[in-house]
């Protein structure tokens, strides 16, 4: 790579854009240029993506070959090549298992609850923060709401437990005053709201960054002329701010849908003991617990089954792919960019 960089440095800058012949083609999308010329023009940008591409290949695409274990009875002592090939056997077993469908249902329910209760929070926060004029107050509020993002879920759950748990601040206070305790950390029925609350507390602040950036991109002149024309606060929000945010909201929604089946592996695993497998088993933990396992006290796994776990994981991946492509199509149908511009 070093050699290429040096060579590029020697290249006269004039030639980068293909000279006068294509000089007029430098439109925003580079339309009309052939790919070779475009490549020459964007050479340095392309080069910059190379390390990321190598990582992607090495850690995301190459291991995909391991998917094959989902189609065999993978035996760790025989290796991938010598293990028995069973086709869709593991999938048949998986789909016949009610516990799997239960984990699937939990995943969808939690995902849905998070979509309704979590997704709008960063947008609302961004609108709020955007109205603050004092830079200092704004920086302070941003720092406060970002901070939980850097906590691990272990810490977040411990904090929740210390405040809301049966022996936490709230319940000790209630008990001291003879009021019966409020069971929120171990209630399987309200678990979906609990995990959403934890997610909001931890991630909403971080999520607002991207919306704030979108807000900053709206031309202030629009607000000025609207104000001159007599538009009030609400009308400015409805007709300028929200339409300005629409593209990014749709993009985030598409990404969110693609991730709809990932609802927080650690969060579920840590709290599985507190609310039970019935409430906390989602696709990710199911695949881990039955596939890889490990000793987690009374939630201990009785024997690893890598093929089964891989089948569960692959099932999820395929559904996620369908979801993200579907959502993207929908975005295009509404005239938005989605993941890429059509």
């Amino acid at each position, binding site marked *: 790579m070093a050699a290429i960089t040096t060579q590029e440095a020697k290249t006269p800058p004039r030639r980068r854009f293909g000279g006068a012949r294509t000089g007029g083609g430098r439109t925003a999308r580079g339309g009309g240029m052939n790919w070779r010329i475009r490549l020459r023009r964007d050479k340095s940008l392309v080069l910059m993506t190379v390390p990321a591409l190598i990582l992607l290949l090495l850690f995301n695409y190459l291991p995909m070959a391991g998917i094959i274990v989902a189609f065999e009875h993978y035996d760790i002592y025989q290796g991938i090549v010598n293990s028995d090939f069973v086709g869709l056997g593991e999938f048949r077993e998986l789909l016949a298992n009610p516990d799997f469908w239960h984990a699937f249902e939990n995943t969808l329910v939690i995902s849905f609850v998070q979509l309704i209760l979590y997704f709008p929070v960063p947008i609302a926060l961004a609108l709020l923060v955007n109205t603050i004029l004092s830079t200092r107050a704004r920086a302070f509020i941003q720092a406060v709401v970002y901070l939980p993002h850097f906590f691990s879920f272990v810490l977040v759950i411990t904090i929740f437990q210390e405040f809301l748990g049966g*022996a936490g601040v709230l319940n000790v206070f209630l008990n*001291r005053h003879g009021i019966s305790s409020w069971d929120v950390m171990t209630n399987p029925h309200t678990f979906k709201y609990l995990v959403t609350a934890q997610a909001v507390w931890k991630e909403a602040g971080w999520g607002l960054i991207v919306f704030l950036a979108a807000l900053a991109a709206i031309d202030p002149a629009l607000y000025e002329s609207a104000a001159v024309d007599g538009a009030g606060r609400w009308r400015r929000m409805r007709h300028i701010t929200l339409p300005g945010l629409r593209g990014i909201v749709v993009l985030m929604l598409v990404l969110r849908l693609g991730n709809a089946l990932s609802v927080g592996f650690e969060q579920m695993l840590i709290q*599985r*003991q507190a609310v*039970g497998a019935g409430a906390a088993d989602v696709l990710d933990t199911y695949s881990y617990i039955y596939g890889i*396992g490990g000793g987690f*006290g009374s939630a201990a796994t009785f024997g*690893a089954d890598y093929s089964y776990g891989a089948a569960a994981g692959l099932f999820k991946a395929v559904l996620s792919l369908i979801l993200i492509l579907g959502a993207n199509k929908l975005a295009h149908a509404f005239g938005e960019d989605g993941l890429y511009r059509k």
Partner: protein
Amino acid sequence: MAPSHGFTRRQVFRTSAAVGGAIAAAPLLSACGSGKASTKNSGVADTNTVKSVIPTYKASTAVTADIPSVQGANGAASDPAFLTFPASPAKSVTGPVGSGGSYQAVTPLWGSVPPPGNSYYTAVNQAIGATLTDSPSDGTTYATMLATRFASGNIPDWLDVPGWNVSAIQNFAEGVDKYFKDLTPFLAGDKVLDYPNLAAIPTGGWQAGVWNGKLYGIPLWTSAGNFPGMLFYRGDIFKAAGIDASSINSADKLKALGPELTVKSKGQYAFEDLTYYLYQIFNIPFSNGHTGWKRDSSGKLVNGYETPEYLEFLNFANSLAASGWVHPDALAGDSSKAKNRFWAGKTVITADGTGAWNKSDAQSGTAANPGYVRQGFKLFAFDGGKPSLALYPAAGMFSYLNKKLNDDQVKELLRIANYLAAPFGTQEYLTARYGKEGTTYTMTPSGPILNDEGNKVVTDTFDQLANCQAVTFNAGADQITKDYAAWQADAVQHAYKPMFYAMNITEPAETAKATTALEAVVTDVRMGRKGVSDYQAALTTWQNSAGNTLRTFYEGVAKQYGTGN
């Protein structure tokens, strides 16, 4: 999240057993099904094969115990206990130990990992004349680490495998053959006499180190009074409340302590999550993290899950969870802080491994509550009847040597093992467990006491590779030694050998998922989230998908190899 807090620290290792070991059991399995299991072996060996590969036992005469071992029922015996360490320790190893080799070892550690190259490691390496580098790995997630190592084939020269982790490894019986050195040619019969300290490890310990009819494992923490653990109580709080612990001899009486010992305004709750230590009170066959088997009155094999006592157990645990007398954090599944709650007096009755009852526990407890006293309930049965306690195999934890080592390397490591297994009261024991006098410990009239440096660097590392027969010793804390010895002397009187005792059996893999799923329901019922009727439905599912297969499988084992009794 930590596993059951029972499996913590040193002497707990007496508490576990092994399910594992394999002779050609393919015909055995062909009877009971197809699929993954049929091509695998179950690891079992018959009694005669086991006998033929076991090392000869030759007791050590290094020291005489202050409280001698007490003989119990069915071959059980309490550990010898010591109140002082001999003033002039004997030498148990003659001649050179290592020959300058360099080896990597991995052992489990329940605590903080000491810095590499510390003064204790240096002292032991100097004494053994080789470079043994131990990389301790967190004991609570050790099973996951092992499973990954087995899957990748990355096995160190010397590896500690706790028996209760074996079920997490895919077909361990096959892995043993593939990755570990067969020690039969080095240790079987009188060959062990080249390593006198290894020969002083009681026969029962070696028994569960046999897999596929060959000797693989070096037994750790060998004891003839090996039990999972017990119910503990805060002696000081009981005393202050005027409760006589010896009057508690049934599940009902235990439960009746709930309202008396729960003071919510102080944050004090009567009970910790008593987990599976309740099994021994409800006479449920149990071994190594699994329910075990027994024959019912008609002679049919029944699993612990299927016994009427299991329902009694669930009813009890379920009602306890709903009573409000169990600490809420325990109900929330936070078992990693169970000890801290007990130390701080947030819980009064807990359950833990036998190893929890020691001097360092007393130190931690006193730091939290100056009056802290840990005491164990004498064994009782749930219905007030005759108690019984399933004996675990004499060793529940084994270390294995890598198959790739050549004979000279194996011999060097066995000489090192012989050094590390030096009996209590010898010079080598002092070095192996305490390091170097003046550097990491000070010798006092009651025995060696770790100094500040020692407290930082001396922990269970090398002694998780090889060690002598278990003894009870707490330098300077004689009351703990006496109390524990008394508890054990009583417990061994109620000991019995459960079916398939000390047999290494690898169960058909396809039954694992159903057991994992059933255990999830058991946890829900225990924690009060589901009712006992939910358990009964789940049990039927389990029987259809795994239980009946296992029954046929174990009938086959019993027919071909006996039941270990």
